């Protein structure tokens, strides 16, 4: 677009100009709307076709509609002033543009089906906010080598079981994003909403404060709403995690008195969206081979370990422990994958545990198998290090190696077929990213069954790891993390799809 040289100085207020007043006559608003609807943001198929035709016919690099002193770029709807020789941003005209854009967006098919009602638009400061921001140049910005988002937690008296879980939750990316964008709308009448407290917790973590936070209100709320946990005694971090998720889930519905909210499967609260997966259980009658399938929701997977009183190896029923289908007792350490294979293996229920088969109309022996029907966005693995059988109470300290990246495909319900044929090593479909996970938090327990201490490793800024030991946060290496014993392992899906 070539403009003439001009000596006229353009007055902008703030980024608009006075020259467009020539345009703003008569029914200019309606005209502008028409222009936008026909040429720029076209909702219907016909208008889109027309736009494409125009596009193919234009001479200039971008299609433009010319007026006396200005022009409208038909690609993005920008207004160019020939006198100013620049694009200008007029408040009134932009308002109209925004409205037309929104209308067209809603007309599109994908908007209706995907539920994405609005085009995402970034935050822009108002004139007032601009002034304030200029007046206050100090910024708290999260950069790569920045402490913002990290904070210690005071131990309130044997409460490290709570602190370690809080650290894991505050470093769960999706959860963090949910709370930092202020998405919780509280419907609870009283002051005792745990989700609100969680929101406050994120504010504390991102406040830039260096002194550790005192989570006394959180403890009070959790003990109020999860009575079975209450009591000043050393407690189990895993149990706290489940209780906390449960209360958060209930409070997300705005339920005032904590009565058990609806069906967990119908819930669309942020907790369910992030943490809830589906575990499929198939019981197969050995006689008629009929299968009974049930699917239950889960927030965590508890895995048995070698070293407990129940034998861990062999992983497959009927094998004698030697090499069968590639799952022999390895010389190296037990891996998380081993534990998952064992968890999802078909198990003979034995003659003492016959199930009534509706096909056979009698009690028959059967096998049972668990697989993942639906994976949560955040998968939590609980290594069962604490044995509570009748005679034994002890901690199992067997080292279990766990990876930074995990592919859950072999443990899916859909992978059962190939596993039955003995293929444990499936070719990894590199294009299918649905089941790929990255480690982001590890909770460790040091000490004995009676008395011990919890700490958490968390991941921040992609590849920086930190150790959270109550009030003390220090930098950690990936090696520190992977060499640790591991009690609760938190993995996050790598790729998120719209549903």
């Amino acid at each position: 677009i070539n403009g003439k040289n001009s000596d006229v100085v353009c007055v902008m207020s703030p980024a608009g100009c006075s020259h467009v007043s020539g345009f703003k006559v008569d029914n200019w608003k309606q005209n502008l709307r028409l222009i936008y609807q026909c040429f720029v943001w076209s909702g219907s198929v016909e208008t889109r076709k027309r736009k494409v035709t125009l596009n193919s016919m234009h001479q200039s690099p971008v299609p433009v509609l010319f007026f006396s002193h200005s022009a409208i770029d038909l690609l993005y709807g920008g207004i160019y002033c020939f006198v100013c020789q620049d694009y200008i941003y007029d408040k009134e005209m932009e308002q109209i543009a925004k409205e037309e854009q929104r209308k067209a967006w809603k007309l599109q098919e994908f908007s209706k089906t995907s539920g994405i009602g609005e085009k995402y638009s970034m935050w822009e400061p108002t004139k007032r906010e601009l002034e304030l921001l200029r007046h206050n140049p100090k910024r708290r910005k999260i950069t790569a080598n920045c402490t913002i988002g990290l904070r210690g937690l005071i131990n309130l008296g044997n409460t490290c079981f709570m602190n370690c879980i809080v650290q894991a939750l505050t470093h769960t990316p999706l959860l963090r994003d949910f709370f930092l964008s202020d998405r919780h709308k509280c419907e609870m009448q009283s002051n005792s909403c745990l989700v609100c407290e969680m929101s406050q917790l994120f504010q504390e973590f991102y406040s830039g404060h260096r002194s550790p936070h005192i989570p006394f209100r959180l403890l009070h709320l959790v003990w109020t709403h999860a009575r079975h946990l209450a009591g000043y005694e050393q407690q189990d971090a895993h149990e706290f995690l489940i209780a906390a998720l449960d209360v958060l889930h209930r409070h997300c519905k705005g339920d005032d008195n904590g009565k058990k909210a609806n069906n967990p499967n119908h819930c669309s609260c942020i907790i369910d969206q992030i943490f809830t997966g589906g575990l499929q259980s198939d019981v197969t009658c050995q006689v008629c081979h009929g299968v009974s399938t049930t699917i239950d929701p889960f927030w965590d997977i508890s895995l048995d370990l070698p070293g407990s009183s129940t034998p861990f190896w062999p992983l497959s029923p009927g094998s004698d422990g030697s090499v069968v289908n590639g799952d022999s007792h390895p010389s190296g350490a037990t891996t998380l994958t081993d534990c998952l294979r064992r968890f999802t293996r078909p198990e003979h229920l034995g003659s003492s545990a016959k199930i009534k088969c509706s096909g056979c109309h009698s009690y028959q022996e059967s096998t049972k198998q668990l697989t993942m029907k639906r994976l949560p966005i955040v998968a939590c693995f609980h290594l069962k290090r604490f044995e509570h059988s009748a005679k034994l109470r002890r901690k199992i300290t067997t080292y279990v190696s766990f990876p930074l990246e995990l592919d859950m495909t072999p443990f899916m319900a859909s992978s059962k077929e190939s596993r039955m044929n003995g293929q444990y090593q499936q070719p990894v479909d590199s294009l299918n990213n649905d089941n790929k996970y990255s480690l982001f938090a590890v909770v460790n327990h040091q000490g004995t069954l009676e008395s011990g201490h919890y700490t958490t490793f968390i991941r921040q800024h992609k590849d920086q790891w930190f150790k959270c030991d109550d009030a003390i946060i220090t930098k950690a290496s990936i090696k520190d993390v992977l060499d640790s014993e591991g009690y609760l392992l938190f993995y996050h899906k790598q790729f998120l799809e719209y549903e």
Partner: protein
Amino acid sequence: MKMEDMSLSGLDNTKLEALAHDVYSDLVEDACLGLCFEVHRAVKQGYFFLDETDQESMKDFEIVDQPGVDIFGQVYNQWKNKECVCPNCSRSIAASRFAPHLEKCLGMGRNSSRIANRRIASSNNTSKSESDQEDNDDINDNDWSYGSEKKAKKRKSEKNPNSPRRSKSLKHKNGELSSNINPDLYKYNYSSGISYETLGPEELRSILTTQCGVISEHTKKMCTRSMLPDSETMLENDGYDAPDGQLIMSRLQWDGSSDISPSDSASSKASINNSESKRPKKKNKPSTLTLTTTGGGGERDKGQERERVVGGGSGSSNAQNALGLSIRKKRPKLPIPPAPSIYDDLN
């Protein structure tokens, strides 16, 4: 070339590739142009450079990686004097002693209900001094054992006899509440110390219609799980259920109606080793304890056996907190109203 006349089927590969390339270039150019407009607008509106961090702040928040200090550059273990205000009784409590305080303050400890029961039992008596002593939440919490009432070891009270907490009587269960206590806290009844032999028929009925009531062999405590279905109820998957001879059935469609909450920890119940999948219960063996500090419960735990996983932490050392309970703190002053400033219009 009119758009309507074009048909892709008649074109060979080269032409198709050229077309594809054209389309792709157009898209890339349009995207670049869009970005240019965004930047231009941001500069013109004045917010493009607004989020640049100032040097000072960048230094402030830089991660420190040195031995002996945390990432903020702070020396370890300097947080011993932190305090907080109890949401229940509004007293100022040392942070590292808050958990044991809260347990008693909410009346949730193993022995709080015993204290409460005593209070009820003695409320008909006129002995004020006895109930005062029972009110003392620093009483050594002996384990209560079924069928006998061991007297708690009395400890020297450090409490100010005029402490506001004295006037709070933790009334007995079933809905009678002290006005200062949040009703929500008493959804579940006191957990321990109830002997069926000492309860009258009315009390028994009211307890057993609202709670489970089973007395554990080990702990001698009564289960106070509410009779209402709740998330703690374990639902067992007992195998076949298929009506009409259907061999394959989804009892719980994923998108349908499962009665089970994820908090039932389906995976741990479903795990193969059944003996481990039981939820570990707290186990308290009766024993005599001597408390050597006035701070309360921190060290008592170590003498007892625990079944469940424990993780407490280093914060339980409480010698330095002995003073925390006896000092009355003044309420913090109200903040001074801010001077007029450019921020006024934001409120």
